[in-house]
C-alpha cells in the first residue's frame, strides 16, 4: 500500500525515535511511505497566534498541493501536524469561502489544490488499512503481561470534528493495537487528556499539573509504561517526568514509547532500529522484566 508521508519537524528532532521506528515498522508491514517532496512546517497551533489562522492553514495547504499529484492518502504520525493538515483539508472540502481564500493564496505561489486527498492519522491506517488481524499475525514476540497506559492524546482524536476516526472522549483504537501486540492496556481515563502541549517554556506549572495528572493516572491504574503517537505527549511525559517528580515529590518511573517502538518490539525487529536510545526514562528495567533484549 502506497501513501504520501508527512513527517513534520518534530519527527526529525525531538521525536526522532518515532521516525526511526516508523521506518522499521513500515518496512516490516510493506507500507510504502513516500515523503511529500519539499514539505514545509505545518505551523503547529502556536504560529496561528502570530500570523493568523488563514495564513497558517494556507501554508499547510501547500503540503496538500505538493502531495496531490501522487494521488495517495497522506499519512501523518504527529498529532499536531495531523490536526492542522486534516483540518485544513476538511475545511477546504466543506467550506466554499475557505476554499476560495486558500486557493487564492496558493495561486500567489503558482500552486493549486483540488481537494482530492484524504489525510489520515497513522493509527487510522494501522487499524483500518493494515488491520488488527494482520498486526496480530505479524507479532512474533507478543508483549504478554506488559501493562500499558494507552495515551492517545488530545489533538490526535479531536482534529476532525467528524467522528469516524476514533471517539473524541474515549479513544479506543490505540488500545486495540496494543492488545493485538499481546500487551494489556490498563484502564486509562486520561487517554485523551491534554498534557499541556507546548507550554513547557511559557507556563511550566501547566505541564507539572496536566502531565502530572496523566502520569498519576497511568501509575494508579497499574501501568508499567505509557504508549503514545504524539511527539508533544511523548516529550512531556518522558522528558519532563524527572522534573515533575522533582516539583511534585513523586517517584514515577514509567518508560514512554512511541506506538511504533512497541509494534517493532512485538514484530521482533532489532531494538537498535527502534530508537530506544532517544528515550529519556530508560526502558531497560522493563525490558529485563519481560525478557526483551535491548
Amino acid at each position, binding site marked *: 500500500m502506497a501513501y504520501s508521508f508527512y513527517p513534520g519537524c518534530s519527527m526529525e*528532532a525531538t521525536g526522532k525515535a518515532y521516525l526511526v521506528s516508523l521506518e522499521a515498522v513500515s518496512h516490516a508491514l510493506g507500507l510504502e511511505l513516500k515523503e511529500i517532496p519539499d514539505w514545509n512546517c505545518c*505551523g503547529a497551533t502556536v504560529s496561528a*497566534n502570530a500570523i493568523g489562522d488563514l*495564513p497558517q492553514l494556507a501554508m499547510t495547504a501547500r503540503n496538500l498541493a505538493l502531495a496531490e499529484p501522487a494521488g495517495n492518502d497522506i499519512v501523518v504520525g504527529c498529532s499536531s501536524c495531523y*490536526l492542522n493538515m486534516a483540518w485544513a483539508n476538511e475545511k477546504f472540502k466543506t467550506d466554499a469561502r475557505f476554499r476560495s481564500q486558500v486557493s487564492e493564496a496558493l495561486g500567489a505561489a503558482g500552486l493549486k489544490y483540488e481537494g482530492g486527498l484524504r489525510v489520515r492519522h497513522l493509527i487510522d491506517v494501522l487499524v483500518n488499512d493494515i488491520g488488527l488481524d494482520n498486526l496480530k499475525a505479524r507479532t512474533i514476540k507478543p508483549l504478554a503481561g506488559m501493562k500499558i497506559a494507552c495515551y492517545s492524546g488530545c489533538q490526535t482524536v479531536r482534529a476532525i470534528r467528524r467522528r469516524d476516526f476514533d471517539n473524541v472522549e474515549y479513544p479506543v483504537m490505540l488500545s486495540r493495537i496494543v492488545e493485538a501486540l499481546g500487551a494489556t492496556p490498563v484502564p486509562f481515563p486520561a487517554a*485523551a487528556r491534554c498534557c*499541556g*502541549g507546548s507550554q513547557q517554556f511559557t*507556563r511550566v506549572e501547566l505541564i507539572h499539573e496536566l502531565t502530572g495528572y496523566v502520569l498519576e493516572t497511568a501509575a494508579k491504574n497499574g501501568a508499567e509504561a505509557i504508549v503514545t503517537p504524539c511527539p508533544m505527549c511523548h516529550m512531556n511525559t518522558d*522528558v519532563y517526568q524527572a522534573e515533575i517528580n522533582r516539583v511534585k515529590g513523586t517517584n514515577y518511573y514509567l518508560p514512554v514509547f512511541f506506538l511504533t517502538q512497541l509494534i517493532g518490539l512485538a514484530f521482533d525487529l532489532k531494538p537498535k532500529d527502534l530508537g530506544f536510545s532517544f528515550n529519556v526514562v530508560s526502558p531497560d528495567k522493563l525490558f529485563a522484566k519481560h525478557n526483551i533484549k535491548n
Partner: protein
Amino acid sequence: MSAANEQASRFDPGFAREFYALENGEYAKLCMQCGLCAVTCASREFMDLPPRKLFKLVQAGDKEAVLQSQTPWLCTSCMTCTVRCPRGIPIIDVMHGLKYFLIQQGSKAPVALMSKIFAENMLRRGRVFELALTNSFFLKAYGPVGAIPIALKMRSVGQPMLLKGRLPLKPPKKIKGLDQVHKIVKKATEVMKREGHQDGV
C-alpha cells in the same frame, strides 16, 4: 463618580463589534453561557476567566477585562471545549484570533513571544529548528544573564534532551520552495485582512 457609574463606563459596545470583526471573532456571538467549556477546560484552574465568562464580557463590551485576561494565553489548543460546545463554537480558533489581535497590539505575554519566535523560526527555513527556537525564547524572555538560573533549574529537562540527541545541533535544510511559503503567507494575510473588514458588524 459613583462606583456604579465607574463600573458602567467600562462597558463599550464598540468593543464587542471590534471583537466580532477579528478572525473567528464572530463566533463569540453564539455563546449561550451554558458553561460546558468552563468545566471542560484542562487549564481552567489556572485561568482568571473561564472561556464562558470571557465570551460574556465580550458581548457586554468589557474591553479592559477581556484584553487583560490570561485565558487566551493558557489555552493549549487541546480542542476539548471545541468538540463539546453545543453551539459548535470553535473556541480554540476564537482564541487564535484574540491572541493574534493581542500580539498585533504588542502583548508582552510569554506565549506572545513564543508564537512570534516560532513563526520567525519556521519562516526562515520552511521548517522549525527546535534548538534555535529554545535558545531564542530563553534569551529574549530572560536576557543572557537571566537565562542561566532558568537553565540550571530546568537541567533535569535540558541535559537529557542534549545527551540523548533529541535536540540536534544542526538546523534542518532550507526547503526549496521557501519563496512559495512566503508568498502564500503574504497573500493569505492580505485575504484575512480584506475578509476581516467584510465580517465587521
